C-alpha cells in the first residue's frame, strides 16, 4: 500500500526535530488540522486548544514515528482523538450535545439583493444547501465524507483514522452520499437551477 503522497512530506523531512524543523512541521500541518477539527462542531476557543494539543502531541511523537502510515494520516488520527476527547469533556459539562454542535460560523453569503453576479448567488445557494445537508448527517457519515472528499484520504486510511475497517468506511461513504442525495432532492447540489 503506497502511503506516501508527494504533497505530504515524510517524517524524515522534519528530523532532527530542531526548532526550525519543528516550526516547519507545524506550519505544514496546522491548516489541515484546523480544517479537520472544525468538522467536530466545537466552539472556536476549544478548536484552538485542540489544534494546539494535536500539534504538540505530534511534535512529541514525531521522532518515534515509525512510518506505518502516511505522516498526514497519523496527524489526522491524533487530531480526531483529541477532538473527540474534548467533545466528550464538553458534553459532560453540557456545553454542547454529545454529537457536537456542527455549528456554521461561516459568514452569511452576500445579500441576494445586493449587486452580486447571478452566478455567485447561485453558487452560494448551492453551497448553503450542501452545508445544511451535511450538518444533518450523523457524525460518522459526515466525518468519513470529509476525510474522503475534502482531505482526500483513501478508504484504508480513513479506517485507520476512525478506528474502523475499510468495509465499514465504504458503507459510511455510501450511506452518507445516499442521505445527502435524498436531502438535496432530485436536482442534487444544483438545486432548482
Amino acid at each position, binding site marked *: 500500500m503506497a502511503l506516501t503522497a508527494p504533497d505530504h512530506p515524510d517524517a524524515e523531512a522534519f528530523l532532527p526535530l530542531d526548532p526550525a524543523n519543528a516550526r516547519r512541521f507545524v506550519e505544514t500541518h496546522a491548516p489541515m488540522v484546523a480544517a479537520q477539527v*472544525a468538522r467536530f462542531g466545537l466552539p472556536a476557543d476549544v478548536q484552538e486548544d485542540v*489544534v494546539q494539543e494535536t*500539534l504538540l502531541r505530534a511534535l512529541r*511523537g514525531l521522532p518515534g514515528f515509525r512510518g506505518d*502510515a502516511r505522516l498526514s494520516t497519523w496527524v489526522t488520527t491524533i487530531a480526531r482523538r483529541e477532538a473527540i476527547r474534548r467533545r466528550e469533556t464538553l458534553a459532560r459539562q453540557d456545553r454542547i450535545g454529545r454529537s457536537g454542535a456542527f455549528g456554521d460560523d461561516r459568514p452569511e453569503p452576500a445579500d441576494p439583493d445586493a449587486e452580486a453576479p447571478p452566478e455567485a448567488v447561485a453558487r452560494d445557494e448551492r453551497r448553503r444547501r450542501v452545508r445544511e445537508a451535511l450538518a444533518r448527517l450523523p457524525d460518522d457519515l459526515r466525518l468519513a465524507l470529509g476525510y474522503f472528499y475534502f482531505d482526500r484520504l483513501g478508504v484504508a486510511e480513513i479506517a485507520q483514522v476512525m478506528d474502523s475497517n475499510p468495509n465499514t468506511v465504504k458503507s459510511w461513504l455510501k450511506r452518507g452520499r445516499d442521505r445527502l442525495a435524498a436531502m438535496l432532492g432530485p436536482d442534487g*447540489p444544483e438545486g432548482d437551477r
Partner: protein
Amino acid sequence: MSEPRRDDDPLGEALTDPAVWPAPLPPDRLRRAAERALADHLCERLRDREPARTGLAPREVLGALAAGAAAAGAAVWAALAALDGAFTGPEAPGQGSFPGLPGDLGLERVAGALGAWAEGLLSPDWSGSWGLAPASLPLWALTAAVALWALLPPLPSSERGSRR
C-alpha cells in the same frame, strides 16, 4: 465493494468544495495555536535536558547517594578494622607509624586502620598484611561506579509521546 470515486458526479464535486465544510479557525487564532504548540514543545525539550530549577536532578541525587554510601562504607570498614584487633598498632609491619598520636586514646589505631586501608587499596598484592584488603573490593566497585557516573556524558534525552 470497490473503492469509491471522487469528482465523478455533482455531489462528489460539491463535497470537494471547502466552502461546504465548516470554516476552520481564522488565521490569527490558528497562528496563535501553532505558536503555543511550538512554545510548549520547546519548553518540554528544555525541561528534559536541564536539571530542575529547585533541588537536585535525579542524576545528581543518585550520585550523591552513591558517594555517601562509599564514604559511609569506608568509615565503617575502618572503624571495624580498628576495633576488631586486626590491626595491632603502628609498629606492625607495613602499616606505617604515627608518632604524634597517643596509642592509649585509640586514635592512632583508627588512623592506622585508615592508612592501612588506603595502602591495601593501592597495593597490587592483596594477600599481604591484613587479609582485609579483599573486603575493599565492594568499595572499589562503588568508587568506580561513582566515578563513571560523574565522568560519562548524560544519555540523550528520550523523546516522549506516542509511538505507533
